[in-house]
């Protein structure tokens, strides 16, 4: 998997609201060892777009999200929000920009202050920042709760789904431009989940939001995202248009993830075997492609050389793999010995080669 590379960045577009380049997040695990949570990830977001990030626990999706809002500051890389480099900002400047980047967390109940009433929780942002153009009662109403009740009730008097609505209202109170949702529906029932997803879609169009949506539930991500990024052990395997990724998954890991979805109409089920073993340690990640230790297609080259993200066809679909699953005619590009086509320098890559 694994890929680095920046070919997939849409630098020509003027609509880019967030550009993340070579993001590295490491946590010290002992005196000399580091957990390599995120290694050289790059991606960009257009205004009004939803990017879904999927992967198993421990793949670095939450670390990526938190690194964007500098919680904590990533080790290296660049996070460009509307032309402002967040990595270099002083504390006070960062504080001023944070309202524009809001986050919703997985556990709706523990992310709300249990001792304050719900109105205060939603209102706190505007109390600190002054009028941001969002009226608190109207916001509470727009997420489907009663504002008068909110003045008297505390979070524990609401159900999990309602608490997630409160979290959404609290995030929207600051008039954000980017909303980062870290597993917002994982703790919720199917019916409540449907309501929160619909609410997020409504709020997105109403407030003109750009959304990063993190989840391990691939059906949910498929539904809500314009683009999807698949992560494994701190690297990006595949990124592109969500329909393309789900219809023609090219990375062996994406195929494993898709095959595991318990959807009776899942066309991917049974196509690949499950992964052997556990996720390797992020302290000493495998060399070359990080997925090679569990990959059915791994060969010698995967150990030596890290694949970079390359485009498939002319579509918005990028994969980082030496032996991707692509259409038969494209497979013919691989020599009979199973050697991948030559792509040593990333600038020369065209897949398939232009006529």
């Amino acid at each position, binding site marked *: 998997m694994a890929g680095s590379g920046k070919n997939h960045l849409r630098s020509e577009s003027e609509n880019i609201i967030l550009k993340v380049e070579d993001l590295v997040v490491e946590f010290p695990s002992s005196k000399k060892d580091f957990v390599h949570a995120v290694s050289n990830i790059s991606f960009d977001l257009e205004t009004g777009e939803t990017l879904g990030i999927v992967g198993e626990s421990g793949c670095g999706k939450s670390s990526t999200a938190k690194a964007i809002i500098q919680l904590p500051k990533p080790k290296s890389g660049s996070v460009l929000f509307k032309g402002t480099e967040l990595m270099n900002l002083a504390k006070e400047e960062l504080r001023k920009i944070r309202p524009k980047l809001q986050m919703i967390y997985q556990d709706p109940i523990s992310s709300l202050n249990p001792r304050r009433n719900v109105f205060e929780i939603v209102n706190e942002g505007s109390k600190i920042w002054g009028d941001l153009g969002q009226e608190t009662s109207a916001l509470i109403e727009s997420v489907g709760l009663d504002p008068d009740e909110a003045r008297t009730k505390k979070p524990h008097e609401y159900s999990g789904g309602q608490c997630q609505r409160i979290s959404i209202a609290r995030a929207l109170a600051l008039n954000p431009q980017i909303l980062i949702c870290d597993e917002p529906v994982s703790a919720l029932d199917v*019916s409540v989940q449907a309501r929160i997803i619909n609410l997020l879609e409504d709020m997105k169009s109403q407030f003109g939001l750009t959304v990063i949506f993190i989840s391990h539930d691939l059906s949910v991500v498929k539904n809500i995202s314009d683009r999807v990024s698949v992560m494994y052990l701190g690297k990006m395997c595949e990124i592109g248009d969500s329909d393309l990724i789900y219809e023609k998954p090219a990375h062996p890991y994406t195929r494993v993830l898709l095959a595991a979805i318990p959807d009776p109409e899942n066309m991917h089920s049974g196509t690949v075997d499950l992964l052997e073993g556990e996720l390797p340690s992020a302290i000493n990640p495998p060399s070359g492609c990080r997925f090679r230790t569990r990959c059915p297609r791994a060969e010698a080259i995967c150990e030596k050389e890290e694949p970079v993200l390359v485009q498939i066809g002319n579509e918005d679909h990028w994969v980082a793999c030496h032996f991707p699953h692509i259409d038969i005619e494209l497979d013919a590009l691989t020599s009979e010995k199973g050697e991948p086509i030559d792509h040593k320098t990333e600038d020369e890559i065209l897949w398939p080669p232009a006529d």
Partner: protein
Amino acid sequence: MSPMTKTDSAILEVENYKVGFRTERGLAKAVNGVSFSLEKGKTIAIVGESGSGKTVLNRGLMGLLTDSNTIEEGSAKFMGEEIAGLSRQRFWGTNIAMIFQDPMSSLNPVMKVGKQVAEPLVLHQGLTKKESKKEVINLFKLVGIPDPEKRFSEYPHQLSGGMRQRVMISIALAIKPDLLIADEPTTALDVTVQKYILDLLQELQDERKMSVVLITHDLGVARGRADEILVMYGGKVMEHAPSEKIFTEMSHPYTEALTAAIPRLKDPKHTRLIPIPGSPPDLVHPPVGCKFAPRCVYAQENCINEEPAATVKGRHSYSCFYPVGTEKNKDAYQKNAAQGHTAAGLKISRRRVLK
């Protein structure tokens, strides 16, 4: 009464089973007359939202609800022997085992995992410490825990969620139970781990001719794994059928609503989900008629005043006056759509067309 009672090889026969809790507000009827039977070596899945009574039903059957404010009524026969209202402790650790929902909090944090798995072996099968260790290591191998000798003397916090759930499964399987109750065994886990755990349970079940009660809120999981599906709502059985029939001949509006709320892989991105309107019923003062009527788009006058009896068609039973797919159902919808609301006052907007 269920069409599937009275078979010779039934391991569990439940007849008009009820569990109530005395609360300050009155008696909460969490399970209100459930009947089903489970044959040896088969799996029944119990599906419903939170608050539908599926967990209470199984904790009741297991004999875990012995509080003086809990009332258990009706009949439940385990291997032909009446168990309702009696102590079931002698079955624990010998014939019936249970896997709980949350693998993080169901293990003892200050006890080595190996010792926790060995406990039932020492207590119930009289093995020595040495013998039990050997057996535990075998079990760890069976459930796919790598490095079993090392894991034996680790504590729960040193294991990942998937590994902890595998430890829970090995505790449940240590005693070779006749009946395994699995309460949302994979809800907290990643899709790939979920598939592994479910495959593993199925394999062990085939090998040992074990019967399984699988509680889940995911109809996708239920469809692939269970022989029969029982859909519960408000403490009652809404629909009960062989697993495929639930989908091909879906009859109850609640089953339909549950299915519609789940995002499906084959739908294009941004497909609007259809959540179930309203919230689960108040169990102290449940609706007089059909429990689902207040949230049902097809509800008519008689649904509110009268509780529908079960319609039994071979192995398929459902309790509804206007079953999905019939002319009556279409007429009921037309009528409600024309007047803009159901008999229970639920608003119907034109967008809510299910088919």
